[in-house]
């Protein structure tokens, strides 16, 4: 990098108007660099999603390196013309000549902010909570002790939470309403949390016990008890949300102590689907999403890695699939990337479930191995696929099975989870019906296309089962094709909420992703050319629509019991790392509370959106404080004064 800097300066000095400051950001492989420049004014640059290995500044002023994403909080100084290494922790930096960032004005009082705390500001809301009226100071050197605190995954979590607990904003958009708790803090401060975990293992699957209890007394040690380390992780998250920054006292407190919380999830499977084929996400982007999942007590990352548009997985046996099917050599996931992500997720209590999208949506396989694809890139694509490019796996070709079984074998090892998604959605028969290889095969074997299709997918699913995995499939397998699926198959409903009834009626377990409520990618027009008025495409699912959907509607108790949980989806046509966080959050948080807290509390009282919004507003602000680019729920005025804005609708209208 030094050499190219020299060159840059050489070029630059020939202009003789050097007023620019440059900051160079490179990852450790030095394969990627970004240059930021500023003229005259001081800037804050967010590099949250940038792979920073080292940062170098060429200017006559200091650079401040900061771990928050908006240049707030403590910083490390980088002197003129010097370099900082191992800067992965840097999420923003400010640089330039003079500060023009808004300086807080002493004279500004700000318009009033009245945010009720009828329910604790914990998201998702715990099942059982009791609180008092004391205020307990939290020691900055808070310690975690007990045998549970020495389990490796917990040790790492404690390290994270020692930072997360003390996130603060000097001018919070939603200041905590201290009038609801005793304004005189107790003399002693909370300096010790005892962590008690019953089981010593770190196995994580759908049946892992995630419950925990947390007590915070007015004086003395707080106690976090859990059956498993994963319950303890949820407890740490809850503890971090109990702590509030008291602006006037410049310190951290837990209001409304003593606390007694006993908590567990209503649904076991609480996930987000991310599509990394239509747009690529770097490993760091995925890790950031997994972080945010864990903060919302979501526990499944459904990785829709492959699709027609690209094949980013670097297979050991068939490297040509990624070699020709990935966007570029940079847009790939190696076995090592996957192992890292699975481990990263596990340390946050998040399962990673891979989806092997087949035999539809699989054009990209055909770039590497053409003989395993049918109707590969047929033009025009209309009639052969839902969206371009056309291409499905050639289900008659022996090589197809060979390839897909090898990939299943590879993934069964890389992804330790006991669930494996075998897809089976959006198949277009015309693609196969016009492929002479397939029509010949049908004639020779005297079977129909649908029989061939059924045999292919059932064989594929059997192969998955042989790896001791539970098979997940999309709803078409059962509801559209009526394939005879073993009863242990888990059916993912997506086409509409009515599918939940149809699947559970047949006695299958289900995971709900009804697109009319829980597709978070919709509402931004279709990606394809599509003139108005059709341009609006499917509807945007507003946070309250997401929150209000009851997946148990019209089900018997026995049918509801077959709901394992749900996933909100983030398909990738119009989302990539630039806008995905705004699309996901805070709507996926609204979804998360439904899955964790359920529709009623243990006393049988309904959880309603009118209460939820009062907690979701501060939670969104908190996500932003933690560096997530969550979108706003409404204007700033309403954020500070929700009761002025969230009033019942005019009954006369």
């Amino acid at each position, binding site marked *: 990098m030094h050499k190219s800097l020299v060159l840059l300066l050489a070029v630059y000095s020939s202009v003789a108007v050097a007023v620019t400051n440059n900051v160079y950001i490179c990852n450790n492989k030095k394969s990627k660099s970004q240059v930021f420049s500023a003229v005259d004014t001081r800037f804050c640059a967010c590099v949250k999603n940038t792979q920073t290995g080292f940062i170098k500044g060429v200017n006559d002023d200091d650079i401040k390196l900061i771990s928050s994403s908006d240049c707030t909080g403590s910083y490390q100084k980088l002197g003129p013309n010097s370099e900082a290494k191992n800067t992965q922790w840097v999420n923003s930096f400010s640089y330039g000549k003079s500060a023009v960032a808004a300086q807080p*004005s002493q004279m500004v009082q700000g318009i009033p902010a009245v945010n009720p705390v009828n329910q604790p500001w914990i998201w998702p809301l715990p099942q059982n909570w009791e609180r008092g009226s004391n205020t307990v100071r939290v020691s900055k050197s808070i310690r975690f002790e007990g045998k549970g605190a020495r389990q490796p995954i917990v040790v790492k979590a404690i390290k994270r939470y020692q930072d997360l607990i003390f996130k603060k904003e000097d001018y919070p958009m939603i200041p905590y309403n201290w009038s609801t708790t005793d304004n005189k803090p107790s003399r002693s401060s909370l300096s010790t949390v005892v962590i008690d975990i019953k089981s010593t293992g770190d196995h994580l699957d759908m049946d892992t016990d995630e419950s925990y209890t947390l007590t915070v007394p007015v004086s003395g040690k707080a106690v976090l008890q859990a059956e498993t380390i994963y319950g303890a992780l949820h407890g740490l998250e809850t503890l971090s949300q109990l702590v509030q920054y008291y602006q006037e006292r410049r310190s951290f407190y837990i209001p409304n102590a003593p606390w007694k919380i006993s908590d567990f999830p209503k649904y076991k499977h609480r996930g987000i689907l991310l599509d990394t084929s239509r747009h690529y996400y770097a490993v760091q982007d995925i890790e950031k999403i997994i972080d945010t999942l864990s903060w919302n007590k979501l526990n499944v990352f459904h990785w829709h890695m492959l699709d027609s548009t690209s094949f980013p997985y670097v297979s050991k046996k068939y490297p040509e699939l990624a070699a020709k099917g990935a*966007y570029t050599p940079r847009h790939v996931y190696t076995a090592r990337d996957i192992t890292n992500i699975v481990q990263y997720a596990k340390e946050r209590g998040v399962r990673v479930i891979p989806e092997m999208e087949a035999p539809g949506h699989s054009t990209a396989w055909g770039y590497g191995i053409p003989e395993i694809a049918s109707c590969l890139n047929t033009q025009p694509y209309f009639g052969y696929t839902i969206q371009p490019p056309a291409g499905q796996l050639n289900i008659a070709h022996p090589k197809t099975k060979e390839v897909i079984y090898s990939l299943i074998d590879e993934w069964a090892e890389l992804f330790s989870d006991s669930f494996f998604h075998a897809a089976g959605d959006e198949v277009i028969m015309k693609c196969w019906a016009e492929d002479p290889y397939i029509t010949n095969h049908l004639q020779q074997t005297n079977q129909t296309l649908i029989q061939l299709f059924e045999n292919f997918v059932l064989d594929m699913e059997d192969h998955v089962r042989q790896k001791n995995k539970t098979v997940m499939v999309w709803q078409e397998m059962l509801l559209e094709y009526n394939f005879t699926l073993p009863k242990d198959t888990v059916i993912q409903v997506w086409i509409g909420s009515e599918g939940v009834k149809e699947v559970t009626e047949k006695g299958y377990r289900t995971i709900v992703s009804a697109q009319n409520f829980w597709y978070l990618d919709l509402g931004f*027009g279709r990606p394809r050319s599509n003139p108005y008025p059709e341009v609006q495409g499917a*509807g945007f699912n507003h946070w309250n629509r997401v929150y209000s959907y009851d997946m148990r509607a019209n089900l018997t108790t026995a049918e509801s019991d077959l709901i394992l949980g749900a996933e909100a989806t983030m398909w990738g046509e119009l989302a990539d790392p630039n806008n995905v966080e705004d699309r996901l959050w805070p709507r996926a948080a609204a979804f998360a509370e439904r899955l964790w807290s359920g529709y009623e509390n243990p006393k049988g009282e309904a959880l309603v959106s009118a209460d939820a919004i009062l907690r979701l507003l501060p939670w969104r602000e908190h996500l932003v404080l933690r560096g997530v680019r969550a979108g706003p729920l409404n204007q700033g005025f309403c954020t500070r004064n929700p009761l002025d804005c969230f009033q019942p609708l005019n009954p006369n209208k």
Partner: protein
Amino acid sequence: MAPVDNDAVKNLPAEQPLWPIPTSFTHGKDSVVLSSNFAIKVRIGSQQTSLTSLENYPIIQKAVARCMDRLAVKRNTTRPDNSLDSSVGQGSILSELVITVNSPEAALEFGAIESYALNVTFLPITSSNFFAAAGNNNYVLNKREDEHHHAEILARQSAIALTGTSSAFLSTETQWGILHGLETFTQLVRSRASSSSTAAGDNIVNTLEVPNAPWSIQDAPRYSHRGLLLDTSRHYFPVADIIRTLDAMSTVKLNVFHWHVLDQQSYPLVSKTYPDLTAKGAERADRIYSIDDVASIIRFGEERGIRVLPEFDAPGHTASWGRAYPNITVCVDALPHSAYAAEPPAGQLDPLEPFTYSVLDGLVKEWAAQFPDKHVHIGGDEINFNCWKTSQRLKEYIDKPEKRRELESKLPPVSPEGQNTMRQTRSGSQSDEDKLLQVYLDRAIGMYLNQKKIPIVWEEIALEHNVQLPESTVVQVWKNAANAKKIIQQGRPVILSSVEYWYLDCGSGAWLVGSQGQSWCGFTNWQRVYSYSLTEKLTPEQQKMVYGGEVCMWAEQTDSSNLDSNLWPRTAAAAEVLWSGSYDAEGKSRPLLQAARRLSEVRERLVEMGVRAAPIFPSWCSKHPEACLKER
């Protein structure tokens, strides 16, 4: 200028996706390589100016510096525009761009000349330039002195020597034309990985070239007012966000930053005269724009040829003014807000309160000095008479004509300025309510006219009220596209922002109350934005009254977190409509497929400059736009 020719657009080389498309251009097939000591020279009038003496022309000086900086980034960045084949040295050498400008200190105002002509010539070898080119042999930096590398450089030099020396000229009338011309020039330049960069790994030195030379471009904007409205009251945007937005605007040749700085929710603009307005009306202590902030935003805009057009929305949308001075507003925080205002909190200026005009007069004087633009947007939208009727005095004025003279007598007299050009918006007699509105408008507009400012108002003032307005008043259309014609028929110029096309905030669901529903206005994807015809159903004479348009970024559901992805690349789609117009000479729209291909590149460019622009389709489609965008 003649409209853009669609056939020419179709022939624009894929590797040079110019945006917005220039009015007219021709190009060839040869490649011109920028030498490593490539420089930009400026000629003011007929006089050759050295770069150091450009100090007297800071806008030009900084524009040149920025251009050189961006070229350096292209040279040193890892993503070369690899669509070019990797053979080196077919091109002739370009060692300078010579800029000629006649009026380097033209005012930045509506109607300023922004045209430019850019020529990049390709000169084949002649005996006289052979040696000049051969002497220019350092364009590939020699870092590794090993023999292999040395041989490679020699090979390249000979390849260059066989071609020639090219030149580039940018001629403009004003410095604003230079900014646009340099932007186009930068878009013409592509980078190509040199083998030295890939070999060394950490040593990124790309070759810069202008493919498809010779280029000849003549370009001028279709509309003079090409803007983006940003609402900084409903959510606060840090100065860095605004500056980044201005920077992005300049790359698509937008020239108006309509700063909707105040609204009912928050009063973030610091006033010297009335500091309490911010002290009590800003939503948070650090969510304010200081006098220095405003100055730096205006300066940053000016350096990029962007006018900062402030809007002081009144008399509606003013609850935040009443936090400091309760007696200049009425119905503040009245409930239910829907009876008194479009959004909470309700509140409007009191048009019969003398102190209202004291405050306003102080502010208008201050703003006039603070914001240099000749135009100022004075708001006037969504005035709710129910709000005014909550005040005894205002109700009396409306209900009792006999009291009006007395009530008005307590107010400052109407300024004589502009009175002789007042014209009624409609025929017929004024309603009692509009008479009250007129009391406010006469005085408020008079204050602006006294400061030599030309007012811009929202369309309600002209279409939904029957009031007197100065002849020069510009009207901004937002409720629907067809309203433009009605206003033009009144003889008033328009700025177009129809919600049907150019409201970028729409589609994120209703944000008020317990709604689960869709927004009151639908999401407009880039193609919808691109399809806004600013001249539909207008006669050629009426079309002249269209000053231009603005996309609007209202901030109910937008803040720092999602600003970029809401704005971009849709704002770029509007920018091309505004700069290049929508139609060719035969009235046909530009091919959408071709626009999609270019826009997807614009989006990549924005992401590279640090703007979090949203994707317009899956990555696969960037490589195969024809497959994705073919009409059924």
